[in-house]
C-alpha cells in the first residue's frame, strides 16, 4: 500500500504545484506591493524623478512622422520635433517655432523662413534649414514619405536652403496656410539612412533624435510611450523630468487610475462621459477641466454623391436635394434639448461651422437667417416643398412612397444613438421615418454615398483650411472608384470661389471675413447642420500637477492641443501624504495577505503529509 501510495502521488503533487502556483502568485503580488506602490510611481519614480503620467486609449499607428495620422501619434511628434511655426496658446495666432520669422514675396509665390540658430538635435548637432528642406523635399519626391502629410506639400514647387538659417519655399499658386504647416521637421543626418519610408516606423532604436521639448526614450505597443525632458530645448526645459503615456483601453479603468493616483491626467476619447465627470467633480485632489472644445457635432445630408468626372453614385434620398426639406429638418431639431439631455450641459449649442473658441473665424447666423427650433414651421416648409402627409400621417416622396431616412451613426458613440432616438421622435411627428444605421465602420457606406444623413464631426485646427477644404468640389473623388478628400460630397460653385479667395488672401482680417462668408453659405445650403460644440471634458490630479497651460489660455483644453503647451508647461506639485498613507496600508495588507497564504500553504502541506502517513499505517 505504501508503495502504491508513492506511485500514485503524482496527481497530488500536481495539485500541490497548482495550489502553490496560486499562492505564489498572490504572494508575489503582496511582495510587489511594497516594492512598487503605484501612487508614488505617478509622482516620482524610484530615483526621485518627477514623472507626469497621462492615460491614453488610442494605439500608436506609427512613430514615424511621415506615416502617423492618429491624434496620439501626431501629438507625440509635436513633443519630439519642432515645426516651422507654432500656435500661441492664448489666441492661436502663428508664432515662431523652428523658424523665427517668415515673409512672402510680393507676388505671393515665394516664402522665406529664417531658421533659428539655437535649436539643437538631441545628439548635439545643430538643427538647420537644410533639415527642413530635406524633410519637405523627401515628402515631395517619395510617396512613402508623403503618406501622412503629403497634402501640405501638394502646392510646393521647389524647396531650398540657401544657408543654414534660410529656408525658401516656392509655390505653384498663393497659399495663405504657410504659417500653419503642421509638419514635423526631422534631422536629415538620421533620416537619410532610411531606405523605405513606407515601412520604417521609428520605434526600434531609442532614444530617438529630436529637437522638441521631449525626447522619446521608450515605447511598447499598447503599454506605454516614454519621453524624457529635453534639457537643452531652446524654449526652456519642461518642469517634469519624464512624460509617460500609459494605456487604459477602458475609460472607467482610466478614471479609476486617476482616482488612485496612478495617472496624473485622463481625457477620455474624446471626452469623459457626463457620469464620469460628475463622479470626479467632488473627488479630493482632482480637478475636472470642462472646457469649450475644438470639435463640432453635426448632421450631414447626402447631397447626391458624385465624382469630379460628373458621374453620380450612391443612393441618397432625392427629397434631400431640396434645400427647403433640409432646412425644415433642421428646424425640427431641438438643439437645446440635445445639449441638456444628451451632453448633459457639457456642450454649447451649434450654429456656424467653426466652434466659438476660434474667435477669429467664429460666425453665427443673423436673427432672420437662423434656423430656430420650430416644428410647426418645419411642417409648413415641407408642405410647401410638396412633401405632404398621406392618410396615415406619413409624408410621401415624389415616388409616392412614405419618406424614411437612413441615418448613419457610429456604433461606438453613445451620443449618436441618443440623438438618433430624438430625431426619430421629432421627425416622426413631422411624418418622416428615421432608420438608425449604427455601424462600427461607417466609412464604407459613407464613401460609397449609401446613406441619407449621417452624424458627422471634426476637430478644427487654428487654421481652418482643412475643414473648409473638405467641402470643395476639388475634394470630390476623381471617379466613383477613387477616394476624395471630401467629407460629404458637397460641391457648390459659390463656396468654391470663396474658398479660392481665402486661400490667396494673406491679410488675416480679410481672410477671416471670407471664411465667415463661406460658413454663411454652408449654413444656408443646409447640407451640414451643426448641432453642438461638445466640450473637452478631462481631469487631472492637483496633488501631482500644480499648474498646466490650457489652450486657449483662458478656458481651453489640455489634451490634443495645437502645440506642446500643456505637457511642456506642466509644473509638478509637492507630494501630498494621503496617497502615501494609503500605499503604506496597502503594504501592510500585502504582507499580511502573503503571510496568510504562506500559513495556508503550510497547513495544506501538513495535512497532506498526515494523510499519507495514515495511508502507510
Amino acid at each position: 500500500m505504501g508503495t502504491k501510495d508513492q506511485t500514485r502521488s503524482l496527481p497530488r503533487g500536481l495539485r500541490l504545484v497548482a495550489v502553490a502556483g496560486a499562492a505564489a502568485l498572490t504572494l508575489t503580488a503582496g511582495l510587489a506591493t511594497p516594492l512598487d506602490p503605484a501612487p508614488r510611481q505617478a509622482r516620482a519614480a524610484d530615483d526621485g524623478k518627477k514623472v507626469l503620467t497621462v492615460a491614453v486609449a488610442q494605439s500608436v499607428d506609427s512613430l514615424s512622422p511621415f506615416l502617423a495620422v492618429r491624434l496620439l501619434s501626431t501629438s507625440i511628434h509635436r513633443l519630439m520635433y519642432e515645426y516651422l511655426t507654432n500656435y500661441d496658446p492664448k489666441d492661436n495666432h502663428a508664432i515662431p517655432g523652428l523658424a523665427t520669422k517668415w515673409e512672402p514675396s510680393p507676388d505671393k509665390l515665394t516664402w522665406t523662413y529664417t531658421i533659428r540658430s539655437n535649436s539643437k538635435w538631441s545628439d548635439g548637432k545643430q538643427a538647420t534649414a537644410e533639415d527642413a528642406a530635406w524633410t519637405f523635399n523627401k515628402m515631395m519626391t517619395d510617396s512613402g514619405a508623403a503618406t501622412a502629410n503629403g497634402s501640405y506639400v501638394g502646392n510646393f514647387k521647389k524647396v531650398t536652403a540657401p544657408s543654414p538659417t534660410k529656408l525658401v519655399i516656392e509655390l505653384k499658386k498663393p497659399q495663405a496656410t504657410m504659417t500653419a504647416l503642421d509638419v514635423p521637421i526631422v534631422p536629415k543626418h538620421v533620416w537619410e539612412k532610411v531606405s523605405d519610408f513606407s515601412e520604417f516606423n521609428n520605434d526600434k532604436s531609442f532614444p530617438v533624435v529630436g529637437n522638441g521639448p521631449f525626447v522619446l526614450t521608450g515605447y511598447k505597443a499598447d503599454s506605454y510611450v516614454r519621453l524624457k525632458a529635453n534639457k537643452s530645448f531652446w524654449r526652456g526645459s519642461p518642469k517634469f523630468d519624464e512624460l509617460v503615456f500609459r494605456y487604459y483601453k477602458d475609460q472607467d479603468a482610466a478614471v479609476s487610475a486617476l482616482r488612485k493616483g496612478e495617472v496624473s491626467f485622463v481625457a477620455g476619447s474624446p471626452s469623459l462621459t457626463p457620469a464620469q465627470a460628475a463622479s470626479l467633480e467632488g473627488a479630493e485632489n482632482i480637478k475636472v477641466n470642462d472646457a469649450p472644445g475644438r470639435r463640432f457635432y453635426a448632421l450631414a445630408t447626402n447631397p447626391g454623391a458624385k465624382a469630379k468626372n460628373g458621374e453620380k453614385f450612391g443612393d441618397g434620398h432625392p427629397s434631400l436635394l431640396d434645400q427647403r426639406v433640409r432646412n425644415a429638418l433642421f428646424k425640427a431639431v431641438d438643439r437645446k434639448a440635445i445639449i441638456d439631455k444628451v451632453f448633459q450641459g457639457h456642450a454649447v449649442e451649434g450654429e456656424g461651422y467653426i466652434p466659438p473658441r476660434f474667435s477669429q473665424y467664429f460666425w453665427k447666423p443673423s436673427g432672420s437667417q437662423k434656423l430656430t427650433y420650430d416644428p410647426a414651421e418645419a411642417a409648413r416648409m415641407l408642405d410647401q416643398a410638396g412633401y405632404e402627409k398621406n392618410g396615415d400621417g406619413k409624408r410621401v416622396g415624389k415616388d409616392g412612397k412614405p419618406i424614411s431616412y437612413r441615418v448613419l451613426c457610429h456604433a461606438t458613440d453613445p451620443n449618436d444613438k441618443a440623438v438618433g432616438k430624438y430625431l426619430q421622435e421629432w421627425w416622426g411627428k413631422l411624418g418622416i421615418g428615421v432608420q438608425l444605421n449604427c455601424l462600427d465602420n461607417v466609412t464604407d457606406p459613407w464613401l460609397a454615398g449609401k446613406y441619407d444623413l449621417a452624424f458627422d464631426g471634426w476637430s478644427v485646427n487654428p487654421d481652418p483650411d482643412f475643414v473648409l477644404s473638405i467641402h470643395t468640389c476639388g475634394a470630390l473623388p476623381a471617379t466613383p472608384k477613387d477616394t476624395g478628400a471630401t467629407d460629404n460630397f458637397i460641391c457648390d460653385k459659390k463656396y468654391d470661389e470663396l474658398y479660392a479667395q481665402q486661400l490667396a488672401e494673406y491679410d488675416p482680417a480679410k481672410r477671416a471675413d471670407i471664411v465667415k462668408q463661406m460658413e454663411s453659405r454652408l449654413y444656408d445650403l443646409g447640407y451640414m447642420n451643426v448641432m453642438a460644440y461638445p466640450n473637452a471634458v478631462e481631469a487631472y490630479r492637483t496633488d501631482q500637477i500644480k499648474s498646466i497651460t490650457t489652450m486657449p489660455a483662458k478656458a481651453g483644453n489640455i489634451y490634443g492641443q495645437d502645440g506642446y503647451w500643456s505637457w511642456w508647461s506642466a509644473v509638478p506639485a509637492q507630494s501630498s501624504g494621503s496617497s502615501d498613507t494609503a500605499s503604506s496600508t496597502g503594504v501592510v495588507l500585502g504582507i499580511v495577505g502573503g503571510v496568510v497564504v504562506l500559513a495556508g500553504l503550510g497547513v495544506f502541506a501538513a495535512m497532506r503529509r498526515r494523510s499519507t502517513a495514515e495511508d502507510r499505517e
Partner: protein
Amino acid sequence: MTADATPALVEERKPAAGPRARRRSAYPRYLAGKVAGAAVSLLAVLVTSFFLFRLIPGDPVKTMTGGRQVSAEQLAAYREEFGLDLPLWRQFTDYCGKALTGDFGTSYQFRAPVVDKITEALPNTLLLTGTAFVLYTALGIFLGTRSAWRRGGLGDRINTGLALTLYSIPSFWLGLLLIIVLSVGIGPLPGMFPTGGMESGGKEGFAYVLDVAHHLVLPVVTLVAVEYGQTLLVTRSALLDEMGSDYLTTARAKGLRDDLVRRRHAVPNALLPTVTLIFINLGRTVAGVILVETVFSWPGLGGLFYQALSVPDLPLVQGLFFVFAAAVIVMNTLADLVYPLLDPRVAR
C-alpha cells in the same frame, strides 16, 4: 521439426494477434486519421480566413485613407503595395503560398508585418490566459471532485452555487468591481493592485518580474473566478456518472479508504470529459479574452483582434483568425491523441 515448428510458431503468434496487438496496430491508424483531419481543418481555416473577411463590404484602402487627401495615384500605389490590385485568385494563391511560410503580409494600419504584431502580443496573452488556465483548471478539478464525492452536502451546495454565480457574471463587470475594490480601494481597504496595464515601465530584471506579477493578479483573479465553474461542473457531473459503478463498490469492499477510492479509481475514469474541456480551454488561451484584456488594458491578442476588425485591417484579421483557429484545432487534435492513453477503447 520444420513441419512441427510452423504450427507452434502460429500458435505462439496467436495471442500476439489478440486485443493488445490490435490496439497497437489501431493506434497509428487512429493517430494518422486525427492528424490528417487536423491538417484538412487547418487548410479549411486558411481558405475561410481569406474569403470570409472579403465578404465585409467596402474597399480596405479607401477605409484606411478615408478622411485624408489621397490622390488616385497614391491609392493605386497602396493597392499595389498591398496586392489588392491583383485578381482575387492571384491574391488567394499569394496569400496561401506566403501563409504556408508563416508570412501573413503587412498590417494596413501599423505598417508592420502581421507576424511581428502577433508575436509582440502573443506572449502577453499567453502569460495572462495561461496562468489563469492553470489555476482555474486545478481549482475546478479539485472542487469538482470534492463536490461530487459529497454530493448534496453543504459544501457541494455552496461550491456549485458559487461556481454558477461567478460563471454567469460578465467578466468585464467583475473586473471593474475588482479594480474599484482592490485597486482604487474602498473605505478602509486601500488599493493594493494596479488599475491596468502589464507593467509600470522602466523596470528591469527581477523588479520587472515582480512588476508584471503585480499587474497580473487582478486580471488572473477575474478570469479564474469566471472560468473555474465550468471545469468544476463538468468534473462533478462526470464523476457523479461514475459513482454508481460496481468497481467502486469493489474497491470499497477491498477496504480502501474513501479518499483513495476517489483519487485512484473514480477520478481517473471520470476524467475524459474534463480532458476535452481542458484542451478546448488550452486552445482558447491563445485567442485571449477580449473583455478582460480591455478592462485591464492588457496588451494582448484580444485587443489586437478588435483593433484589426474595426478598420478592417485584412492581413491582421486573417493572420489572427488563422492563429486562433489553428490553436483550437491543434489542441483538439492533441486531446484526441491523449484519449486512447486514458481509455484504450477510444482508439479501436
